[in-house]
């Protein structure tokens, strides 16, 4: 087997935070008496990732995903443990290393707001020292993949959120990084844009043979892109393996979202599955994964529906199941 591109051994990252008692008195008291507490953001995580893999890195809010990606990017210094990315210790922040990876955070933007995205691209070209011909080639590929040729010369502030995100991605990838850390790249985007970005990430992975770690709260992202998933919870790794295995074992249900044309009784719907929400004309049903399509069909013949959607359960729901089963076996 090939050498791993990324390897973590017993990584720990603890933060020291202080707790303030509520109220003004608490504020005054904290002037001389600060109660420090340790937050174990990452608590003994190990894994290896091989060339060309796209790994889904999932966990609930505050699980430690961003912290791990920051350590891998050389932004945070580990409390203990060994980290190696492309054979470098990220913390050394060597230019050679930095030219080979990119950290993309869905909520952080780097484009110059009042200028066309192209200007930011050219700036990054200079910072990353990308040669002219390679720059042009990469830019062409990326612009075609994302279909943004017409907008890169328009001021960024005049673009839609989705268009801006596409340009952000191009800016982050112009130096054709071999390793990509994507921290919730699809956050806040509509369903269509999410799909576009997923397709792009997949294409980038194939085109540039890139190794990618992706965090997301959307099951769709992970399911479509990642064969392998690493699940963390409270800083600990609780699963590392085939994503399909998690889905088979812990996502037993799918979600049917209905929009009804005519009023029905809740009891009528309950014959088809567990009613999670019912607020006419909308209803949400949990149904067994294997029978979701069939039940949807039955509902369509039985009631007059304006709309029906089959959705994956949220990642958070799956992780809760996984976490519970961990506890039971432990």
């Amino acid at each position, binding site marked *: 087997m090939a050498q791993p591109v990324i390897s973590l051994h017993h990584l720990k*990252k*603890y*933060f*020291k935070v202080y707790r303030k008692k509520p109220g003004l008195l608490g504020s005054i008291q904290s002037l001389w008496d600060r109660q420090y507490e340790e937050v174990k953001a990452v608590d003994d995580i190990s894994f290896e990732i091989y060339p060309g893999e796209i790994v889904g890195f999932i966990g609930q809010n505050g699980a430690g995903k961003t912290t791990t990606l*920051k350590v891998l*990017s*050389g*932004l*945070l*210094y580990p*409390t203990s443990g060994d980290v190696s990315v492309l054979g470098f210790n990220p*913390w050394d*922040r060597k*230019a*050679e290393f*930095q*030219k080979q*990876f*990119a*950290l993309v*955070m869905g909520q*952080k933007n*780097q484009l*110059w707001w*009042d*200028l066309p995205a192209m*200007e930011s691209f*050219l*700036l990054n070209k*200079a*910072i*990353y*020292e990308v040669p002219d011909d390679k720059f042009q080639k990469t830019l062409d590929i990326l612009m075609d993949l994302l279909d943004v040729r017409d907008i890169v010369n328009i001021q960024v502030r005049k673009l839609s959120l989705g268009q801006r995100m596409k340009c952000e991605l191009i800016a982050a990838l112009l130096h054709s990084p071999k390793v990509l850390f994507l921290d919730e790249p699809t956050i806040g985007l509509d369903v269509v844009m999410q799909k576009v970005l997923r397709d792009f990430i997949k294409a980038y992975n194939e085109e540039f043979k890139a190794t990618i770690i992706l965090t997301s709260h959307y099951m769709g992202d992970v399911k479509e892109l990642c064969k392998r998933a690493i699940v963390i919870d409270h800083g600990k790794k609780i699963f590392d393996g085939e994503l399909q295995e998690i889905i088979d074992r812990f996502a037993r249900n799918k979600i049917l979202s209905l929009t009804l044309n005519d009023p029905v009784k809740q009891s009528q719907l309950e014959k088809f599955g567990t009613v999670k929400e019912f607020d006419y004309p909308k209803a949400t049903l949990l149904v067994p994964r294997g029978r979701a399509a069939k039940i949807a069909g039955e509902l369509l013949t039985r009631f007059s529906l304006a709309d029906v959607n089959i959705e994956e359960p949220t990642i958070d729901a799956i992780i809760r199941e996984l976490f519970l089963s961990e506890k039971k076996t432990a």
Partner: protein
Amino acid sequence: MKNTIRKYWSLFWKFRKLRLMLLLEYRGNFWFWTFVSIMWTIFNFFFFDLIIGARGSIAGWNRTEMYVLLSTFTMIDALTWSFFYHVMQEYISSIFDGRMTLTLTRPINPQYLLSIQTNSYTNVPRFLIGLTMMVITLRNGAIPITVWSVLGFVLFYCVSILFVYSIWFIVATFAFWVDRLDNINELVPSTRRVWQAPKEVYTGIVSVIFTVVLPFALISSQPSEILLGKASPYWLIYYTALTFFLFYLSTVFFRFSVRKYSGTAN
């Protein structure tokens, strides 16, 4: 090495170009602040003219010499204000809102990138006013000018810029250490009154503070004294050495603070 210098040099000018493009985008804003800065400069000269007019000289500096000093101050202040005020503001807010993260992943010296990323052009006319006043004063005052005095002036003009930069950068870097430090960026500009008086104005303990410990009084005095042929080599050497030391300190403090930001201390 040669490539690195070329990269850093060309990046510097790329940022200037981007800022110029933004200026053209927001012309109204530019004209307004340019007007304000010109008015401020004229008022400043007028104010000092009144004081000198009443007293004939200030701390042994006659009218001509005072005008050289004021012109020097104007040229230094125009540049440091144009650059550092905006650069440090951006630097400080990038610490608070987390954009610093991206800067640190770039294959370039982060302090350099932070220090060149922005500027304004509203003070360019002010610089030109300062320069014009300088030329007029030197001619009218019949002050002998040599190639050496001009070179010395330019050199110490640069030392003063570096001095202001280093102090300002060190002050701004405190933003890493305190959760919210409002108005920290106003600290250095609030000392500008001290820069524009001759160093002999200060006596006693104040003199020790402003010429030795935190020699703000040398910023305009030193380059001016060279032009006027009254510079003391001891002061020049001390000022230069201190400036380089402060610059070195700014880089050390920055690296140290980044480590704290990254949680090395934990």
